[in-house]
């Protein structure tokens, strides 16, 4: 270990901290729980011969990196996280990158380039996501005892809502606003089932068609963080998830009020 780090040029604590923050903050926003961020960052820091400690919150990470033998070579830095958008492929790739660094297969500069490439990696195209969302909401509706008509309406509602949300987000609007509008549109489409009495279980259509907006990853991560003892990150995540859930509720209320509350 010792020989390996000395044979490469000695990397400054500041550079290590910068790399760790870049990777960690991006992991956090892509849907990793704090324990995973900690493991990945520690692996990289240890290979470069540093000790580290960090304080993760959902909105950013504060990290200290220091060299045990050289007390001057130490740094504490903070970085704000980018906007939360779940992309689990990032978790895989940064995990692979950290193992490559830990095994000494990648130098610092190459790792830097690779991280930039991972950051630019595109999500699935929006029409595929819309299709997938529609199919999964339709299947969930069928699982909850809905008839094919209910499932078809859930499919339409979820797909249209998802496309609308994509275009709102593309115009750089606030993400909570996008969720309110998407859930209102989805509920309007799914609500026709109740109004015209098309299917066997119209309640299921309404309940399952907005499920694609549910912040499953932050919700579950908040509990995992709670169990592992990262309380500040856990509270921030649950607050974020709770506000998204209430935005979904606001959108549904708008549509239900429009369609007439007594019909439901």
């Amino acid at each position, binding site marked *: 270990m010792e020989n390996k780090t000395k044979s490469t040029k000695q990397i400054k604590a500041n550079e290590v901290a910068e790399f760790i923050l870049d990777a960690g903050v991006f992991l956090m926003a892509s849907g990793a729980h704090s324990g995973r961020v900690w493991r990945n960052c520690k692996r990289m820091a240890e290979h470069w011969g540093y000790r580290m400690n960090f304080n993760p919150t959902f909105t950013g990470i504060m990290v200290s990196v220091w060299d045990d033998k050289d007390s001057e070579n130490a740094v504490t830095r903070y970085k704000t996280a980018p906007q939360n958008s779940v992309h689990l492929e990032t978790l895989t790739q940064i995990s692979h990158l950290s193992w490559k660094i830990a095994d000494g297969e990648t130098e610092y500069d190459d790792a830097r380039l690779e991280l930039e490439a991972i950051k630019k990696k595109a999500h699935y195209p929006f029409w595929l996501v819309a299709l997938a969302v529609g199919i999964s909401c339709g299947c969930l509706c069928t699982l909850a005892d809905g008839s094919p008509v209910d499932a078809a309406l859930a499919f339409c509602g979820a797909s249209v809502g998802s496309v609308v949300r994509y275009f709102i987000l593309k115009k750089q609007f606030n993400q909570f606003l996008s969720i309110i509008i998407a859930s209102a549109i989805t509920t309007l489409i799914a609500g026709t089932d109740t109004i015209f009495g098309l299917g066997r279980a119209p309640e299921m259509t309404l309940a399952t068609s907005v499920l694609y907006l549910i912040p499953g990853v932050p919700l579950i991560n908040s*509990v995992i963080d709670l169990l*592992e003892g990262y309380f500040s990150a856990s509270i921030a995540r649950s607050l974020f998830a709770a506000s998204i859930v209430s935005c979904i509720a606001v959108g549904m209320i708008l549509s239900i009020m429009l369609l007439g*509350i007594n019909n439901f």
Partner: protein
Amino acid sequence: MELLSAISIDFALAFCVAFCWGILFGTPWKALLMTGLLGGFGHGIRFILLQSDFGLIASTLIASVSIGLVGIYAAHKVHNPPVVITMPACITMIPGLYAYRSMLAGIKLSDQAILEKEPNIIPTIAHNAVLTFSLLFTLAVGISISALLFRNKSVKEIRFIKNRLKLKGK
């Protein structure tokens, strides 16, 4: 026979849900198939347990824990961290219906006339909200079971899998 076909239908639907949810969450293309299989497997277990009167929360807990445990091995097979495939698989059991019911009852609470017509609206909210939170908690326990049981070791360091790999190498 009838039960068998019901289970396979349940498996197929849950497969679709987990697969598509994997696309929404951006699971890598190669791991999507495994995600779907895992989701179908977990939901199938829950279906069987529900049929044998196990109770909703207990059967969801057992199903999500088995997803979490099988997920460790499955993830290793497709070279991904376990969360990447267990997260969409567990989402198939998300308690959307109960969340919706408590929300709808909450909206109705604001209307005096409906409140007088349906006096047991507050127990409805409480019941559905408690169900929602307990189900969410069981899902989270299932996903984090690997981290909890193996004390934060990475998959590559778990001795069981290492031994298996060594045996295979010989």
